[in-house]
């Protein structure tokens, strides 16, 4: 039998082969293939995100505007529901039986052992009504969550709203950290300051067993982080003043923007028609949003930032300043009110200096100012001369923050339009246009678009005699100040001396005899207002009314622009509205004899239009 002994090697070889196969296979799945480690973490690690307390929003005077209030979701763990008395349960919740059954079915489909929401967004009173009885229904529990609530009925456009993140947002890299179902600022300040308001999420890694039941912290909580509450925002908006301005703008379309010229802080920001910010919060928010969206008055449209209009006569001030800086005119320069060049607003005295021109808003005067500034004989070809001149003019004008986004702390802002030479080359053809083509720009009409905010910023710049700070809503974040970009001055390249005649001219508009903005005068309470009216030609209907001003003229504390669509001449509607807001801001109250305007101004804008 000796020859059979060799077979022990065969047997041993079989053993060894299997052992080697196992060793190789184990080396592959344990050492080489990393996917099993990931699968193991997916099995056992549960990432619990703690949503931090969202920052609050205060107004200029420290009054709280936006806060968090708890809302409650009624949760259900289907497996723990025992012999549900459906009739009593539905009576308690005041919901139809079918709806409860459908929700329960959906919850069961999601998970039998994990909690899912049955009814969402219950308010505290709604919760109180059912809470005591909930003990009779095992498997149901209440989960608290924070939702935005508002202490104001105004400022909807500035504040913006908070909503659940949409799938489109989730795909953007900026929102990579967000989970489906989380809430974030969708528009307005809630969106712009999302990072600050949001705070930092806390993350806890928990280990769960095969049934999803928690088994304690992962590695003793080594990787856990605590959530950090969001920072509060302190707005420069004055809640009381804002309410007042919104009330005055009731029934109209248009905007009011007021700035503190020294700081660039936005004091009033009205986009009319407006809505209550609470509309876009809480139960039924989706339906209410759709209603706003379908409203033909477009209340969701953020007019001060998004609506660009030709600025009208108020733009004459910019043109004059640019021409003065170029040195092509002096304050004492006079031009005839030549109606052949362009029709003037009305018959008036001879504009022998800029003050008289501004007071009367003389169209031919400013036609000639701009022509002097543009047509400087750089080329013997008058087409080329217009091209070069317009380019130079545009460079100067854009320094006022026009034709570009100002950079306010809110998305949605539009650039507006300051036309370039290329613009006309493309539209009319190279050397097919001259000054006669673009003269409308001289009086703020034609191919020019400016937002309400930009117009207000021009007023602040004039009030400051040549500089501005980018307008902003937030003057303090948490314990700190505003964002750094809202702390630096921008100069517009106009020497302060050139304002010496412009500002008195603007005072003349309001306080002078026969000035177009006489309705805005606050001289009776000892405040001199420097302003400029404007009437913007509107090819689609009645003209738009504007009034831009700052006060007090000597030591400006507020710069304001009122823009009312289809209200005709700026002096009759926009000017008194602006004066009410300025007086209220500067004195804290309105003189008794002007109270009648508070009753008279609100309402449709059309009634200010004198139809000929």
């Amino acid at each position: 039998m000796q020859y059979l002994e060799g077979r022990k090697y065969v047997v041993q070889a079989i053993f060894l082969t299997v052992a080697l196969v196992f060793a190789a296979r184990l080396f592959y799945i344990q050492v080489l293939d990393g996917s099993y480690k990931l699968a193991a973490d997916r099995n056992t690690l549960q990432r619990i995100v703690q949503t931090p307390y969202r920052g609050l929003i205060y107004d200029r005077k420290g009054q709280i505007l936006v806060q968090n209030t708890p809302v409650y979701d009624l949760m259900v763990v289907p497996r723990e529901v025992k012999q549900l008395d459906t009739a009593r349960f539905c009576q308690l919740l005041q919901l139809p039986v079918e709806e409860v059954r459908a929700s329960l079915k959906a919850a069961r489909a999601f998970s039998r052992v994990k909690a899912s929401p049955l009814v969402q967004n219950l308010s505290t009173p709604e919760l109180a009504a059912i809470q005591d009885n909930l003990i009779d229904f095992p498997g149901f529990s209440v989960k608290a969550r924070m939702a935005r609530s508002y202490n104001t009925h105004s400022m909807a456009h500035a504040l913006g709203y908070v909503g659940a993140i949409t799938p489109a947002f989730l795909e953007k890299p900026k929102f990579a950290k967000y989970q489906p179902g989380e809430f974030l600022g969708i528009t307005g300040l809630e969106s712009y300051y999302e990072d600050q308001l949001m705070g930092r999420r806390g993350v806890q890694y928990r280990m769960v067993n095969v049934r999803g039941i928690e088994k304690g912290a992962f590695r003793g909580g080594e990787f856990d982080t605590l959530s950090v509450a969001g920072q509060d925002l302190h707005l420069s908006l004055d809640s009381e003043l804002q309410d007042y301005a919104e009330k005055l703008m009731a029934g109209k379309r248009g905007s009011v923007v007021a700035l503190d010229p020294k700081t660039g802080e936005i004091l009033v920001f009205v986009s009319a028609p407006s809505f209550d910010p609470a509309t876009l919060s809480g139960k039924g928010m989706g339906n209410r949003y759709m209603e706003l969206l379908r409203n033909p008055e477009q209340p969701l449209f953020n007019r001060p930032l998004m609506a660009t209009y030709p600025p009208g006569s108020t733009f004459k001030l910019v043109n004059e300043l640019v021409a003065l800086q170029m040195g092509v005119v002096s304050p004492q320069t006079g031009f005839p009110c030549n109606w052949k060049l362009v029709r003037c607003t009305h018959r008036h005295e001879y504009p022998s200096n800029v003050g008289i021109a501004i007071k009367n808003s003389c169209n031919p005067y400013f036609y000639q100012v701009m022509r002097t500034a543009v047509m400087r004989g750089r080329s013997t070809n008058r087409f080329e001369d217009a091209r070069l001149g317009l380019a130079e003019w545009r460079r100067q004008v854009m320094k006022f923050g026009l034709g570009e986004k100002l950079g306010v702390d809110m998305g949605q802002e539009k650039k507006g339009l300051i036309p370039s030479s290329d613009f006309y080359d493309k539209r009319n053809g190279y050397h097919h246009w001259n000054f006669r083509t673009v003269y409308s720009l001289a009086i703020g009409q034609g191919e020019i678009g400016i937002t309400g905010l930009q117009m207000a910023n021009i007023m602040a710049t004039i009030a400051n005699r040549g500089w501005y700070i980018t307008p902003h809503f937030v003057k303090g974040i948490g314990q700190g100040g505003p964002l750094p970009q809202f702390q630096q001055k921008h100069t517009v390249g106009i020497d302060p001396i050139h304002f010496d005649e412009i500002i008195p001219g603007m005072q003349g508009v309001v306080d002078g005899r026969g000035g177009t903005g006489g309705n805005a005068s606050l001289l009776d309470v000892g405040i001199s207002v420097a302003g400029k009216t404007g009437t913007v030609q509107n090819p689609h209907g009645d003209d738009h009314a504007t009034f831009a001003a700052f006060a007090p003229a000597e030591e400006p504390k507020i710069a304001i622009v009122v823009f009312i669509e289809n209200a005709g001449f700026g002096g009759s509607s926009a000017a008194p509205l602006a004066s009410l807001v300025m007086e209220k801001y500067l004195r804290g109250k309105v003189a008794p004899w002007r109270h009648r305007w508070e009753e008279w101004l609100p309402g449709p804008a059309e009634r200010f239009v004198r139809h000929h």
Partner: protein
Amino acid sequence: MSTSPARYSRSIDWVTVLIYLLMVGVGWLNVYAASYSPDAPANPLSSLGFQELMAFNWFKQILWIGTAVVLIVVLLVIDSKAYDTFAFVLYGGMILLLIVTPFIARPIAGSRSWLELGPVRLQPAEFAKFITALAVSRYMAGINLRQQNFRDQLVLAGLTLLPPLLIIAANETGQALVFGAFLLAYFREGMSPLILLILAAAGAILILALLVPKLWLVGAFTLILAIAFGFNSKLWRHHLPLSLSVWAVVIGMVFGVDFFFNNVLQAHQRKRIEILINPSADPLGVGWNVTQSKIAIGSGGFAGKGFLQGTQTKFDFVPEQSTDFIFCTVGEEWGWAGTMVTIILFMTLLGRIIYVAERQKSVFGRTYGYCVASIIFFHFCVNIGMTIGLAPVVGIPLPFFSYGGSSLWSFTTLLFILLAIDAYRKQDLERY
């Protein structure tokens, strides 16, 4: 016992005992890890009562190990000639027990194979392994397998197949398959290698038939045959009927796989094989065990997560973690290093058993030794194979590692009867 205990002790193969103790020790550590609960008191042995401790597998395993030591002493004290002498008696008794068991056992997990004696549950099928090994070794000693005595071969086949058939009747297919391992021992004793080859080829064809489109398989096989025919047509013409019938059988097998698969196998067995072929199908259903077991082992990495640090095993992702899937705990907590140590321990034990078997003078001792090696090897193959997705899920334990009294006692008995026979042989040598 005619010799002094000291002399007897010297004749015991202590190397095997040492490997055995190492495996049982390492096995217990893993059973402890698998049944460890972080909620339990820090020092359970002093703070918990006996009844409460009995709720823990690791504690019960201590009792099983303790009784196994008693068992070892008894096995070594019994005159080892008794194993030879009473082999057939034991076999007869065991067959009776296997027949009776399904009638008196309560059904547990779909099979009536567990006998309950007070608090202890025993599975007769576990003990059928060593008793059958004794019986076939005893029978082998009286015949010569090489001489191709058909009657002897038939009796041997009968002895080997009767217990597994009874076990299948009790619905414990996994335990029955173990008896296939005896073929290795018979091979060592002179069984034609053709039988092993044919079985291996049949297995390969069955697996290929499940993996590869059938027509390809038939085509490839026919092509190989035709080419061989062309090379040496004379030889093939001599054996034409044989080669044609082999061809027919193979074709029959290829197409018979479906029939076997759908009609012979039970639903759960069919699924276990489907999972082996396509593990990602139905990962939450039938594939769960295999998927989770691979995740547990695979997540161990090179050095493992550390003792008691396994998450997959601890949080019940792996089912049967202290019994059939104990290897998952080894893999997860000790990593590749740990699984290698386990495999090396098994290889050392198997090598040592073959060494011991080969030094036996008697055919009985040698055959029994090979039976022991083959049975342990089969468990090793199938148990580890199933945890890493190389074998279908068959519910058999990993020797010396898995929790459970029946299995520990049965493997201990299996091994220590061999050591007793070996010790007796040495004493014989010393006597002369």
